[in-house]
C-alpha cells in the first residue's frame, strides 16, 4: 500500500491513480455478486482502498466477472466491457469462468471466458469471501505496478480474434466492431 509515498505520485501519477481509485462496474454477472455488498459496506469497507461501485461503465476501470457466465449474460458483458474507457482491468471470481467449473457440460454457460474478453486476474474460491477479494485487489495493484495488467491492450491488438469468437457464438452481433478490423490503429479525434 504505497499510497502515501508522494515521490511515486509525482513520478507516474497515472499508474498510482489507477491503483488507488478502482471503480468497479455495478453489474451482477453471476452468483458471486452476493459477496460484493458485504465487501463495500461497514464490515469490510472496500472504499478505504478506493474501490467503489461505479454507476455507469463509462466511469469504471475495474470489471468483476462474479461467478458462472450464462450465454445471454455474455452478450451484456461484452457490451459493458466495450463501453468502459481505456485502461480497464477485469477480474474473474471462482472456477466457473476459468473452464466452466461444475457447469462444464451445460449447454448454456460459457466455458472459457477469456476466449471472449481478456481477463487480468483470477480469484479462486466458490465464491471468494471479501478478504479474498481484497487480496485479489492488492494482487491487481502489483500487476498494475509491474504493468502486467494489460488485458485491454491484448483486447485491442487481437480484436479480430475476440470478435470472431464472439460472432461464432452469437452469429451477427448488432453493434459495430469496437476497433476497425482492417487496420489495428483506431482513429483518435477530439
Amino acid at each position: 500500500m504505497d499510497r502515501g509515498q508522494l515521490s511515486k505520485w509525482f513520478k507516474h501519477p497515472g499508474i498510482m491513480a489507477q491503483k488507488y481509485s478502482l471503480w468497479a462496474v455495478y453489474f451482477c454477472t453471476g452468483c458471486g455478486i452476493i459477496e460484493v455488498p458485504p465487501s463495500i459496506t461497514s464490515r469490510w469497507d472496500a472504499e478505504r482502498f478506493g474501490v467503489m461501485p461505479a454507476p455507469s461503465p463509462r466511469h469504471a476501470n475495474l470489471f468483476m466477472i462474479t461467478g458462472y457466465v450464462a450465454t445471454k449474460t455474455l452478450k451484456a458483458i461484452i457490451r459493458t466491457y466495450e463501453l468502459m474507457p481505456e485502461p480497464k482491468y477485469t477480474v474473474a471470481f471462482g472456477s466457473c469462468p476459468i473452464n466452466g467449473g461444475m457447469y462444464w457440460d451445460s449447454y448454456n454457460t460459457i466455458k472459457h471466458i477469456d476466449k471472449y474478453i481478456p481477463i487480468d486476474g483470477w480469484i479462486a474460491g466458490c465464491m471468494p469471501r471479501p478478504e479474498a477479494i481484497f487480496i485479489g485487489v492488492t494482487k491487481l495493484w502489483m500487476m498494475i505496478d509491474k504493468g502486467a495488467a494489460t488485458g485491454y491492450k491484448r483486447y485491442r491488438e487481437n480484436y479480430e480474434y475476440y470478435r470472431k469468437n464472439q460472432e461464432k457464438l452469437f452469429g451477427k452481433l448488432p453493434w459495430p466492431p469496437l476497433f476497425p478490423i482492417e487496420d489495428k490503429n483506431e482513429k483518435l479525434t477530439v
Partner: protein
Amino acid sequence: MSEELAKEIIDNFSNTGVSYTSKYRMYIQTPKEELFRLLEYLKDNGFKYLVMITCVDWINENEFELVYQVGNFNTPLRIIIQVRIPRNNPTYESIIPIFKNATDYEREIHELFGIVFDGNPKLTPLFLEDWQKFHPFKKDFDSREYVKVTFDSIPTLEEYK
C-alpha cells in the same frame, strides 16, 4: 366434493380415467381429442385458473406427455390433466382461446421440447439464444456432444496465433 366431480367426468367423457382423487389433488388421463371439451367443462364449474403446463418425454414409449394443471380459487382442489401425444414431429392445438395465459407456457415447451402449438401467435425464443437447431430438454439431446461442438471448437488465443 372431488368424488362426485370425478364420477361426472368419467361418465360424460369417453375413455378418460381418474387415477387418483383426494381433498387436494385429482389426476385425470384423457385422450388428445377430449382435452378441449374437458378444460371448458372444468372452467365452467369454477376451475378458472390455469396454474401451469409442463411436458414429460417418455422416450421408450416414443410419446410426449403434456400435463395441464388447473386450479380453483374457492376450493383447495387442483386438477392435473395428462395428455399423451406422439413424439416425432409433435404438434398440438393451443389452448389460448380458453386460458389466455397459456401463451408463454406453450412457448417454453416449444423451445425446450420442440412441440409446435398451432394457434399460438408468439412461438419466439424465450430463454435460449434463438438457436433453432436443438431442443435441450429432450432425452435424446447429448449436451456433452453439444458442448464439444460449440464451445470447445473455439480456439484459445495461443492456438489462434
